[in-house]
């Protein structure tokens, strides 16, 4: 046996609904009902509206940096909807707001987060997710660990973790994939390949034909899907999640999508990418094809669209209000969440933060305990 093949594998691509809203009937069979599609489309209108308003809030100085989700809604919704609310656990990055909302995160939490308020991360009891992850690529290890805990506790629950194409370059991605596969934990790795990591295009990020093939390193089930196709995303996610729930271990999903907006509001993508490329992707918008599909099925119309958009506006206005009318955070919050119990030194820092330099009860050093006239 001097020379022989010891390993071979391949990666499949899945699309069910094309850009014109045509579906492959056979593949579509086990996916979403028209009722569900309708519901999710309306939900996506709300999410897109929030996204637009968030952008405007930033532009008008009412919010800090914000990364638009625009164009990636099918990836978030198709996968998020495949996971069981209240049971499964989401470990997001920052470009899948819609999935978080589906699982019960109050919408204004996202605004609070980008308004520089930790209360946007204070996930309510019973909502199963971690807060947005700002550092890239680190959260997949947490997802792996949470899934591992589910396995140890023999709970039939699954984690799904989101990250971008750029994130797959980080060492932590590799370690998470390897731990998940070696320990066979119920975790779904969902990569939103939106073609860009800030200004770096995918083919400068890696020299790989697909992102999906990265899972082959770990003998992990993997698939590339049209990430702007709600049905394909949902089907791939459902399969992966149920396999994980049944004890079949982790899976990888590459959702091929596109970042229609700038990286964040602090970015200007015209510096580095061709508007022609963007234009080409505008037509592939996941919401356009859903609308075409629904219209063809007579489930949708211009009026319905207008009504839905109106509803979304009113709804999102309330969300903004909730975020903007929240009372100011307590300054003591800086100190009170460092540990379960505040250590003495930190208590002293909290007590003297306005009266003296730090770490020194002023009276102890013979200084004035009260602010001076300064």
């Amino acid at each position, binding site marked *: 046996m001097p020379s022989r093949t010891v390993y071979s594998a391949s990666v499949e691509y899945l699309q069910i609904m094309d850009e014109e809203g045509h579906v492959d009937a056979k593949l579509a069979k086990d996916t979403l009902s028209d009722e569900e599609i309708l519901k999710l489309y309306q939900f996506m209108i709300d999410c897109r509206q929030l996204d637009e308003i968030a952008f405007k809030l930033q532009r008008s100085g009412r919010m800090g940096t914000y990364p638009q989700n625009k164009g990636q809604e099918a990836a978030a919704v198709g996968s998020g909807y495949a996971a069981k609310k209240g049971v499964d656990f989401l470990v997001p990055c920052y470009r899948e707001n819609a999935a978080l909302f589906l699982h019960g995160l109050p919408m204004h939490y996202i605004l609070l987060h980008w308004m520089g308020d930790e209360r946007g991360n204070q*996930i309510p009891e019973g909502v199963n997710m971690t807060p947005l992850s700002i550092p890239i690529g680190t959260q997949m290890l*947490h997802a*792996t660990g949470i899934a591992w805990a589910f396995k*140890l*506790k023999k709970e039939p629950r699954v984690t799904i973790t989101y990250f971008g194409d750029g994130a797959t370059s980080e060492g*932590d991605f590799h*370690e998470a994939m390897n*731990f998940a596969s070696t320990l066979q934990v119920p975790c779904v790795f969902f990569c939103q390949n939106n073609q860009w990591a800030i200004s770096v295009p995918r083919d400068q990020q890696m020299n790989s034909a697909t992102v999906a093939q990265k899972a082959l390193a770990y003998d992990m089930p993997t698939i590339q899907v049209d990430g702007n196709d709600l049905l394909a995303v949902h089907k791939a996610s459902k399969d992966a999640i149920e396999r994980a729930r049944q004890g079949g271990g982790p899976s990888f999903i590459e959702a091929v999508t596109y970042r229609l907006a700038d990286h964040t509001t602090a970015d200007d993508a015209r510096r580095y990418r061709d508007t022609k490329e963007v234009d080409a992707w505008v037509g592939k918008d996941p919401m356009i094809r859903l609308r075409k599909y629904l219209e063809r099925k007579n489930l949708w119309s211009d009026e319905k669209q207008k009504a839905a958009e109106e509803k979304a506006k009113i709804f999102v206005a309330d969300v903004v209000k909730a975020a903007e009318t929240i009372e100011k955070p307590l300054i003591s919050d800086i100190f009170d969440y460092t*540990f379960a119990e505040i250590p*003495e030194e930190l208590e002293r820092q909290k007590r003297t933060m306005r009266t003296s330099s730090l770490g020194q009860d002023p009276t102890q050093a013979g200084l004035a305990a009260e602010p001076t006239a300064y």
Partner: protein
Amino acid sequence: MPRTEMMKEKGLTLVDAINEALYQEMERDDRVVCLGEDVGLNGGVFRVTDGLQKRFGADRVVDTPLAESGIMGTAIGLAMGGMRPIPEIQFEGFMGPAYDQLTNHAARYRTRSRGAITVPMTVRVPVGGGIHAPELHSDSPESIYAHTPGLKVVMPCTPYDAKGLLLAAIRDPDPVVFFEPKRVYRSYREQIPEEDYTIPIGQAKVVSEGTDITVVSWGASVFECLAALDKLPEDVSAELIDLRTIYPIDQDTIIQSVQKTGRCVIVHEAPKTCGMGAELSAIIQEHCFLHLKAPVQRVAGFDTVMPYYKLELEYLPNAERIGESIVQTLSY
């Protein structure tokens, strides 16, 4: 593991005490899992986890892949998922790859989620020099983690303290870095209670009382300080404090002592600049300014890379350097 005859007779080593604490806590609380490189079947390269996998199974004492960030990051996930993970990093030099997960994630989750998500875990790490180990097996990074908000850091040097502090650490609702001075692992035995007890995190220990000078140290250096104290002139009354917890610092014990003695020498293995000695010195001059009769002295590692073992004893603070510094401080 249950105590052997030898342990019953001669007392426990640091390794024995830590092993006993792990064993007892795993019996008591089935959320506790140990994970790390070679901690399972092999019982850890220092045998600290010896026998645990046999008793509790490969699900609770897990040989992980060789990846420290993976160990730390999945331990964070385990903690968030309701377990009480005890990740081991095989040597302090290999905390480097886990640095990001430990300092930017484990340490921050409670604050950033305003208490909604917490990370109760105990990171066990052998620490320090003096055992003729290869490169990167002899460092003392404690001040790095003391500077990291959201972490507690302990470094007991006796079997008694190790057991009590480890049990406290595992039950602590926040991440604790538990440093084990490997030079002491087997060099010292002590009779300690077999039953469960805890020592509060954040309390220093007065090892010996005195009135002329305060010596503060922790980890293996405490034993060097004891040796130095032994050789001091009869009429010198030195107070030795074992910090035990690196963060939060037990300021009261140190301040009270230095207010009494007026003089202080701090001893640690880590490089001098920005080591814990700096912080303690700063605290002391802030709080004992009018009591100080001499500058606070630091006997520490140099601001150099920890040398390979042929020179390591030149680097580590020893009884001579400590004694010298005490005598000089007394004669100021």
